[in-house]
């Protein structure tokens, strides 16, 4: 089922949780709502489910306005961050709950329920836990049971609120892959909320980035990562190095230093913010002045395949910190040492015009 939200506005007191948000979620896609905490993503999810009411705007389920439809008639499956399993019921009873609550005329027989519950438990690979209580399960198992319970009522959409937020890193990674496989199997329209960019980029067909109650960008994981539309998206999707500068012809003037960049549609003299990912910066030892930004190495962390070099800015960029990712071979080749003065030269630079956001020059 397709979901559409139109001009959703929601305010808690003076705090604007959602500011005229309009989005479309096509049938069968797995979409991630990604953003920092307090950006309104969970509120949006709860409004789609009907657990929260918007101050204004519409939620369209399959083209039909659902604003007047009660939560229990929306046929959505909802998975909560803290599972919200019924603690006094066995796993079996938890999964059977939705079917047993149906009006008598629509309720399946106890035998049908049993078959269905066991099918679902097999789907989440936890058939052997049917008689346990939630307290006897691990976090990952509980979340899979919660998912089975949500699927039991054959929802038209599946909404997941930070589904892996309360799990430890390893389990989270496993469940991510598992959720992706499950979605490929069921093709049910799904939206999941997360603040973990890696999770969103890895699992979703499409990512919606949100900040301060507004949608910043919508796109496939590759699109948003490769072509971030705003400084927020750029910095949210991974580590960044940031330079404040001014456009001077084909270069960006950063303090006394100069960064080369492929001409962009920026006017001469425009104030810009330039971004580069750690792997997009190279270190030059004996670079001439005027090419690259001067910095001093403060720490070299070389324990993985790649080495991470942390630097402090000098000259125009003093007080700033930079991070560069190099291969270990490159670090050895350059013979880098802590305290050494070097220059940073970007292989790729993403520029944004400086704008005033909330009274603060970014």
């Amino acid at each position: 089922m397709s979901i559409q939200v139109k001009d959703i506005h929601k305010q808690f007191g003076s705090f604007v949780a959602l500011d005229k948000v309009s989005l479309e979620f096509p049938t069968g896609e797995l979409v991630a709502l990604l953003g920092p905490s307090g950006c309104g993503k969970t509120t949006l999810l709860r409004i789609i489910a009907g657990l929260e009411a918007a101050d204004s705007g519409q939620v369209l389920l399959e083209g039909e306005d659902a604003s007047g439809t009660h939560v229990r008639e929306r046929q959505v499956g909802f998975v909560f961050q803290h599972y919200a399993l019924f603690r006094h019921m066995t796993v079996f009873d938890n999964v059977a709950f939705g079917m047993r609550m149906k009006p008598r005329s629509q309720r399946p027989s106890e035998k049908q329920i049993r078959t269905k519950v066991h099918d679902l438990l097999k789907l989440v690979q936890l058939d052997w836990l049917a008689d346990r209580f939630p307290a006897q399960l691990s976090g990952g198992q509980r979340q899979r049971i919660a998912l089975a319970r949500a699927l039991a009522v054959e929802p038209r959409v599946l909404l997941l609120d930070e589904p892996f937020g309360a799990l430890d890193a390893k389990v989270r990674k496993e469940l991510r892959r598992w959720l992706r496989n499950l979605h490929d199997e069921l093709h049910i329209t799904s939206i999941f909320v997360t603040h973990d960019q890696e999770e969103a980029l890895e699992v979703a067909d499409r990512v919606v980035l949100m900040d301060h109650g507004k949608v910043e960008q919508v796109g496939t994981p590759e699109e948003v990562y490769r072509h971030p539309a705003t400084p927020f998206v750029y910095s949210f999707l991974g580590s960044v190095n940031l330079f404040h500068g001014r456009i001077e012809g084909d270069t960006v003037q950063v303090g006394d230093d100069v960064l080369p960049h492929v001409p962009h549609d920026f006017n001469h003299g425009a104030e810009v913010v330039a971004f580069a990912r750690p792997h997009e910066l190279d270190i030059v030892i004996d670079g001439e002045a005027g090419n690259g930004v001067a910095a001093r190495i403060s720490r070299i962390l070389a324990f993985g395949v790649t080495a991470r070099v942390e630097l402090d800015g000098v000259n125009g960029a003093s007080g700033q910190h930079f991070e560069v990712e190099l291969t270990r071979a490159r670090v050895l080749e350059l013979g880098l040492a802590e305290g050494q003065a070097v220059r940073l030269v970007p292989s790729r630079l993403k520029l944004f015009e400086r704008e005033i956001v909330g009274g603060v020059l970014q």
Partner: protein
Amino acid sequence: MAGATTFHIGIDHAHRFESKAATRETPVVKWLILGISLTFFVVFLLMPLIAVFVEAFRKGWETYLTALVEPDALSAIKLTILAAVISVPLNLVFGVCAAWAIAKFEFRGKQFLITLIDLPFSVSPVIAGLVFVLLFGAQGWFGSWLSDNDIRIIFAVPGIVLATLFVTFPFVARELIPLMQAQGREEEEAAVVLGARGFQTFWYVTLPNIKWGLMYGVILCNARAMGEFGAVSVVSGHIRGQTNTLPLHVEILYNEYQFAAAFAAASVLAVLALVTLVIKTWVENRAAQSHKDSNRDDAS
């Protein structure tokens, strides 16, 4: 009022402290504190309890039994039970509603309502009784209307039930509010999303989660309902065989120097109190157990 579960968590900590030499207090301190509290316990709690039974049986079994099966005593017992049977279920419903409203809804004046629930605890029971006299007594606000319509509240059974209701109101609500607040709304939201109706949600999800706290509140409520003296005394009028509850009956007998009979009636109340304590301890254990389970639930 302590929650049903706090005690047991304390015992766990105590055990951890005691089992290690590094954290153990010196024996002198331990026995001194233990001695003080045990002495206090024996003098102020155990001796009076024993005295009640000794006095009750001083003149033998027969006097004891006669004192209890005498019509006035029987009527007092009946009235006490009646007051409890009416006020406890009503307060169960009120308490659950109030706790539900406070824990699960946002509304203006919530803080005021919480304060109001505590009112019966902070107001002297005598004042509580007087309030009802002022409202429904012959000279009270509704007095003339009531007597015109031939309805008797003060110095009659309805007054006693009202006074009992008033003084026992906070028990259930007080017990449930922190419990329901701690549990939040997630399970109920999950139930509603799964298609459960309001009543189904309450019956299958909310109630099982609060049942031990509810039981605990009901037990305390019942103990107070049967033992209440002050408020009931003001509205009762002390008409023997009609508006005397068991505590009032004890007082009357005592004032008439019928000590054996007075203590016999008092012993019934004491037994009630002991039974309450036993049930309360059992419920506390169960509540602690389910608390532990749900804690484990939150842990990992």
